[in-house]
């Protein structure tokens, strides 16, 4: 009974507290009534004439330079026309003024207005970008009569070498949901809707570094929204932190040379320092003009780029994969020597084709090469010799050496979008195709055909392994002072020496790469002519439709004694590597030598 008595007391005290809370809630409601209803008009007035504005101080984006300090991109001021709809007395009249000054069709302006229907009316919206100074002046004159217009100054990215560096530098685009989410968890990345951020290439890769951090400031504005006074209050001002400048490993002269050489062609050129992995040039053709992306890109131009059958937005050096053709013989030679599958002086007779298991595999030279040893087979790119190797080596062994040379996996370059390519083996066949590996396929792989797929960048890494005596390099776009990150693959020096010497004869001893030879700068290389369609007969490439023609490859390094440069040229459907690719590599080395001796006569 005592318990029940206390219970009643408990509940009465509880009810007192509950009443108290209810009274307080009512009092608070009265407080809101006093502010919102009794004094609402006063506060509405204050809000409408709130003369304080928080203004973002945009951080200026970091610049990008080539290895010699040449600026590749700059920031240029650009003027946008903003419309504050809440200040407009008559929107039709406002639009009329824009039509009369800018000549933009009325319909287009209304479409912009329509797209901002859910934007608060007092938030200025962008009507036009990139106003000329003359147009700017005409709006300024109308200032008093049209207080609804404001001009915003922002920085546009200008890529000085437009197409020539487009795939490397990338471009900016309007901030998307993904970036805004990153910003939500990372206080350093202060994105707000409408900001421009790196979308591709170096601009994307080093976004954090280049961007810096926006600041914020409270300003006093006049009735037209113009800043009349900056509020000197350190508490409420956060300075913008400018983005950091970036120096790339790129050599502008070589890059421009590569881009020029690819003009009118479809393909890619990669030039790399094999000692450090620094990319000196990386061009892909066709290219695009990234300056189009600096402003909100025009729909028409965007559609054209997307629908272009040659996909100019793709960086063919690392985003596309191709059969390597005969440049793969470099890996085959090393694999055979390391596995002691051949004696380099042993000779094989080439009669223009091999008959293996009632199947005919052709050599590129229908008349045949006659008796060839390993060196001859590389020098003349004899397929029959490598068909023999394909019978002696297991596909899993070939795959092992391919991976040692960096094929089949991403090189780890500091640029997004890289493809890994494909190194086929038995496990892959089971997993991806659900069939067992056919021995005949090994014969194809031995000459760089079959399911094997590589990127031009991977071929550059592969060639550099031979140049650097069996050490694997990780390519990079940042300038590194020294090497030290090379990974020793444990390949015997003898195998590499024999392969290297054979590659020297390709260029310097009447081999398939002789069109790349330069006086005074010894180059070693390997040509490749990758079949796009399987041919049973010898058809001349010129007689084939363009999209069925062979891909042309040339992988090389120089100078022979102390390699400083690796050059890979790849031309899509270019035909024979000796004719379509090797001469371009030569031009690259000439540019490189010219750079080394800037005052060379002639």
């Amino acid at each position, binding site marked *: 009974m005592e318990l029940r008595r*206390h219970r009643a007391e408990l509940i009465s005290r509880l009810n007192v507290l509950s009443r108290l809370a209810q009274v307080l809630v009512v009092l*608070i409601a009265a407080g*809101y009534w006093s502010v919102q209803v009794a004094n609402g008009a*006063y506060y509405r007035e204050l809000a409408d004439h*709130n003369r304080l*504005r928080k203004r973002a101080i945009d951080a200026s984006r970091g610049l990008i330079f080539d290895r010699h300090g040449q600026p590749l991109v700059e920031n240029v001021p650009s003027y946008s026309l903003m419309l504050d709809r809440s200040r407009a007395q008559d929107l039709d009249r406002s639009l009329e003024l824009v039509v009369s000054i800018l000549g933009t069709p009325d319909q287009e302006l209304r479409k912009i207005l329509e797209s901002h229907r*859910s934007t608060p009316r*007092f938030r200025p919206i962008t009507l036009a970008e990139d106003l000329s100074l003359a147009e700017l002046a005409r709006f300024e004159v109308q200032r008093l009569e049209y207080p609804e217009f404001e001009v915003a100054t922002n920085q546009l990215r200008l890529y000085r070498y437009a197409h020539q560096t487009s795939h490397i530098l990338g471009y900016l685009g309007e901030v998307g949901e993904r970036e805004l989410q990153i910003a939500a968890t990372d206080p350093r990345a202060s994105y707000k*809707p409408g900001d421009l951020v790196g979308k591709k290439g170096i601009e994307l890769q080093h976004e954090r570094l280049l961007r810096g951090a926006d600041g914020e400031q409270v300003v006093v504005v006049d009735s037209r929204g113009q800043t009349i006074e900056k509020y000197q209050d350190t508490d*409420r001002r956060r300075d913008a932190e400018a983005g950091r400048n970036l120096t790339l490993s790129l050599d502008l002269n070589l890059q421009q040379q590569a881009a020029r050489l690819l003009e009118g062609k479809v393909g890619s050129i990669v030039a790399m320092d094999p000692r450090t992995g620094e990319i000196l040039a990386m061009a892909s053709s066709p290219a695009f003009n990234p300056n189009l992306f600096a402003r909100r890109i025009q729909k028409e131009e965007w559609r054209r780029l997307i629908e272009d059958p040659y996909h100019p937005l793709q960086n063919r050096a690392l985003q596309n994969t191709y059969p390597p053709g005969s440049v793969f013989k470099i890996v085959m030679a090393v694999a055979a020597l390391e596995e002691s599958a051949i004696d380099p002086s042993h000779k094989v007779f080439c009669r223009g084709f091999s008959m293996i298991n009632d199947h005919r595999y052709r050599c590129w030279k229908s008349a045949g090469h006659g008796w060839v040893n390993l060196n001859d087979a590389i020098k003349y790119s004899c397929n029959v010799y490598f068909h023999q190797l394909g019978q002696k080596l297991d596909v899993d062994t070939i795959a092992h050496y391919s991976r040692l040379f960096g094929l089949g996996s991403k090189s780890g370059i500091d640029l997004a979008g890289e493809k890994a390519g494909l190194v086929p083996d038995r496990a892959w066949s089971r997993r991806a195709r659900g069939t067992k590996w056919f021995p005949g396929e090994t014969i194809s792989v031995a000459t760089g055909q079959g399911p094997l797929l590589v990127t031009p960048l991977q071929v550059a890494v592969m060639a550099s392994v031979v140049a650097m005596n069996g050490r694997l390099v990780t390519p990079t776009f940042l300038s590194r002072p020294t090497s030290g990150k090379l990974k020793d693959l444990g390949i015997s020096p003898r195998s590499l020496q024999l392969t290297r010497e054979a590659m020297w004869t390709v260029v310097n001893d009447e081999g398939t790469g002789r069109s790349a030879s330069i006086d005074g700068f010894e180059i070693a290389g390997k040509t490749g002519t990758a079949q796009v369609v399987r041919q049973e007969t010898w058809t001349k490439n010129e007689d084939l439709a363009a999209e069925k023609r062979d891909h042309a490859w040339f992988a090389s390094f120089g100078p022979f004694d102390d390699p400083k440069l690796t050059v890979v040229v790849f031309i899509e459907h270019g035909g024979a590597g000796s004719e379509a690719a090797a001469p371009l590599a030569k031009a690259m080395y000439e540019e490189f030598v010219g750079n080394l001796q800037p005052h060379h006569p002639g």
Partner: protein
Amino acid sequence: MKSLSGTFSRITPADEPSRLRRLGNVNWGPLLATLALAMIGVATVRSAASELGPSYAYRQIVWVVVGCLALAVLFRLDYRKLVDLAPALYLFGLSLLVLVLFVGEVRGGAKSWLAIGPFGGQPSEFAKLSTVLMLARYLAGQRRAFLDLRQISVAALIVLVPVVLIAAERDLGTAAMYLPMLAGMLLVAGVRPRMLATFALIGLVSAAGLWTFAMKPYQKTRIVSFLSPEKDPLGAGYQVRQSKIAVGSGQWTGRGYGQGTQSQLRFLPARHTDFIMAVLAEEWGFAGVLVVLALYGGFITSTAGIAARSRDRAGILLVVGLVSTITFHVIYNASMVVGLLPITGIPMPFLSYGGSFTLVNFMATGLILNIDFRRYVNR
């Protein structure tokens, strides 16, 4: 009474029809208020954080959904089992508070965030529940008309341990929120008027002492600027003033959803958390404020009713502890936004953006319904 409880004692979980009838006897008022406020909260967070991207509203939705699940779980468990387990839960809560001191992450100036893989939370919020349970268990065991000094001291100690630990995280706002819980439960459990007066005196003296010796200058300016915000519109009075302009400019019916100049032009600080009421008041006007205050009033009144018909002391005290905390948050936050109290980082229950806070308030609602559901069962 005996025969009545005898009848209900035969009910087993398998007895589905009676179960349903019992569900019909539960007062669902707190749940309806919780859900309505949470939905208003998500919509207001979306508008308030529109500059920061829609992800804030999405995350708040996720937390509300998780909160509903947690609410269901806490409804299913028998609250008396939780009271039995209170010492273990209390110690577990304390150990998390100790853990966060060592491995916690600093967020918003306080080292209060405990990350578990991709998830994380603030133990200081969850320890509220274990502390309420512990306190209810202890005070339910004291069956005299009034508590004596020793009992009050023990109760204070139960609360003081987590409060000191949370204060050590430099999260004074959350630490202070444990005191209304203690005050509410002590008052209902029974404190002699004379003792109450003594405590009030001690409180006043220590507040004066704090002001003179312990408060940091910024804390003092906050209070001073609260008293006269017009003196320095960009200084410490800035927030109060901008908040009042936001609230006042809403007038009767508001500026319209997403159209508040004060909120959208970033005049308001912490728009989606502590100042969410200001955004609501600006965009929905006094009409919107009335709806929200009515929902809170309904929540408080219906939970008080649940406490009053609860079958045991522990149940009454548990509801009082949970509701005191939430009510204090509501009263303080609503007053501070309209300039009636100094500004402190106290969010609005069910409305403000925040994971742990939302989750714990939903769990509190679950527990309150649980107590109502089991008011007949005699076991």
